[in-house]
């Protein structure tokens, strides 16, 4: 036996991955091999479930082998996908946060699904009719399908039954309007932080999502759903929404000051330290599994109308794949979004299944009977509104989030916050606007 020298150890370190890579090439001759990038915005439990699903897919047909690649948070997945496309190694498919799809279209980094759908003899419009209509604005862009919705959510009002009874409120009648909401939060609040009336995650991403929901519930549009160069941050509907937050945090003091994150909200909710919280329907299974005391869920209260912004993720086709790899990705995407699999993923996670037919299956009907909270989440879809997406989505979203976070810390008044948010957003949008809506005509 040779003594293991430093050099041979290093040689082995280099040789092992190289050999593995060669083995990968040899197998590709029989089946089309693709990778699918996926973020899992919850625990490893879901990552394992996704791997199990993909194993089943690989075993169920002979033409395609998919390697599921866990790629971190939604933002990390976005970064990795972009880098991989630029480096010429695009994955076959990606589960991408639905509000990033528009930017991929603007940057020319995705292929539309229309040619593949047409090849199967269907019209793209008819194909998309199988999905909930509220999902369309984030998936169908400039008249073409760029995203196939996979897991979707809306914000939901969670409330503790014991806390409601304790505060003299009727758990069968959750607050339905903003006026009732403020009153309920006041009744629930106990002094010196023993119990807050309401909590919600004010961290980036969540903050913008919930703010947009409040603005839309106040009758507003928040952003232009059809054109990525406009936001309506300084509209009266936005001012009203920020005033609601200002009253709840800084005047009535029923929301803890400062920015809470999702973990803080769920921990407080489980411990009975907040009577209500706003959280994604995608957290239903997590809350159901960890909340020891009885809780219920309700629609987000309305001001001018009921509204709940869509969240979640869609499958996209990154640019730069060969037709065979696209066909392989399509096989996978069809399987993953089929009513059976979409329904199974929905029951496992709490996300709602984007394909309407999933809810016609007997397992799904049984599940909804068993868990009324999932039924409420589904019913709220009637009021679903599109998710914020513009040119440079994250930065433009942050222009408002920074102001809302400052408001939550009592550092800015609603009137000033909306002006500053609009001004910053306009600056960020200007390069795109100048190339599009304001492009020189002569």
């Amino acid at each position, binding site marked *: 036996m040779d003594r293991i020298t430093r050099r041979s150890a290093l040689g082995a370190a280099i040789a092992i*991955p190289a050999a593995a890579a060669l083995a990968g090439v040899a197998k590709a001759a029989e089946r089309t091999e693709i990778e699918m990038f996926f973020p899992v*915005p919850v625990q490893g439990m879901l990552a394992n479930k996704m791997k199990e699903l993909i194993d089943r897919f690989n075993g169920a047909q002979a033409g395609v082998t998919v390697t599921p690649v866990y790629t971190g948070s939604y933002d990390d997945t976005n970064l990795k996908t972009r880098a991989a496309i630029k480096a010429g190694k695009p994955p076959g498919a990606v589960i991408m946060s639905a509000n990033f799809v528009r930017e991929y279209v603007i940057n020319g980094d995705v292929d539309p699904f229309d040619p593949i759908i047409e090849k199967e003899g269907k019209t793209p419009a008819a194909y998309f009719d199988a999905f909930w209509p509220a999902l369309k604005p984030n998936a169908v862009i400039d008249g073409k399908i760029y995203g196939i919705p996979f897991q979707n959510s809306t914000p939901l009002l969670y409330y503790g039954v014991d806390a409601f009874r304790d505060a003299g409120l009727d758990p069968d009648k959750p607050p339905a309007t903003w006026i009732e909401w403020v009153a309920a939060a006041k009744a629930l609040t106990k002094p010196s932080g023993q119990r807050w009336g309401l909590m919600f995650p004010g961290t980036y991403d969540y903050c913008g999502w919930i703010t947009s929901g409040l603005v839309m519930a106040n009758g507003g549009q928040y952003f232009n759903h059809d054109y990525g160069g406009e936001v309506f941050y300084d509209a009266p509907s936005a001012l009203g929404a920020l005033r609601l937050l200002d009253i709840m945090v800084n005047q009535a003091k029923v929301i803890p000051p400062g920015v809470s994150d*999702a973990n803080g909200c769920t921990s407080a909710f489980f411990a009975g330290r907040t009577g209500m919280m706003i959280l994604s329907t995608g957290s239903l299974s997590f809350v159901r599994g960890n909340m020891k005391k009885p809780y219920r869920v309700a629609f987000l209260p309305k001001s001018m109308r009921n509204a709940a912004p869509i969240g979640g993720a869609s499958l996209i086709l990154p640019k730069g794949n060969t037709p065979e790899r696209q066909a392989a990705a399509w096989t996978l995407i069809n399987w993953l979004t089929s009513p059976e699999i979409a329904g199974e993923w929905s029951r496992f996670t709490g996300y709602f299944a984007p394909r309407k037919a999933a809810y016609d299956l007997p397992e799904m009907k049984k599940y909804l009977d068993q868990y009324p909270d999932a039924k409420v989440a589904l019913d709220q879809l009637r009021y679903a509104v599109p998710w914020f997406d513009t040119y440079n989505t994250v930065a433009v979203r942050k222009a408002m989030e920074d102001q809302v976070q400052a408001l939550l810390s009592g550092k800015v008044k609603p009137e000033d916050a909306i002006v500053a948010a609009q001004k910053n957003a306009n600056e960020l949008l200007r390069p795109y606007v100048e190339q599009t809506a304001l492009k020189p005509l002569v």
Partner: protein
Amino acid sequence: MRADGRLLSLLAVSAAALLWAVPFAWMAVASLRPGIPADIASLTPAGPFGLGNFVEAWKSGSFPLWYLNTLIMCGGILLVQLVTISMAGYAFARLRFPGRDLLFSAFLLQLLLIPPLLIVPNLATLVSLHLYDTLLGIMAPYFASAFGVFLMRQTFRAIPRDYEEAAMLDGASIAALIRHVLLPLARPGLVAFAIVSLTAHWNEFLWPLMAVSSPKNQVLTVGLASFASGAEAGSAWGIVAAGTFLVAAPLLILFLIFQRRFVSSFVLSGIK
């Protein structure tokens, strides 16, 4: 007067140590508590305690594979770096050649580049070298280290030339000179660099996430993120803490074992 000063600095050092220790202590406590306790923030909870979180964390990932990959990655980077930085450090410290100082300044400019800027160009290079999605691909961009070269140059320059002159009189070649005379004398610098390099690459997340896709090439940090990052739901803190502990454990143990040598290396090499 002097006693007062010492007391003050002792207090300051203790305060800093406490600041560092509290999150760590909390992680240790939280990792031992099952479920999601109501007083999760508490440092001195009443119990119950158990190792269930560690079992669950271990089961939700392929830790043995991640440990192996991380070891190969960090070890591979370090081995190559030690060779390149001592040779380049020697060249910049001792050899005379035209444009040496200019070249050295250019080399140091690397320190000013923020790594995320290089993700796409580096990935493109990996793809053309057929190293995309390999462990070697994660390692390659780090084989040369501007910081290491700088450190070794300074270390070599601090060694009196008398040793080298004596060795040269005895007929030593440059290679023998570096290997038998300079490197043993530069050991504190090498050890200090090794610690910095190991911890940096052990903890690195973004680049391994970008460079590697196959589960078989996954490293610890990326693996941990699969159950530690919760965007939409809350996290099971106990499991996250246990997983983080598993990731940090090898470095911690290493440090405890070699504590004395590490500290003296840092003092001698001037890194603080």
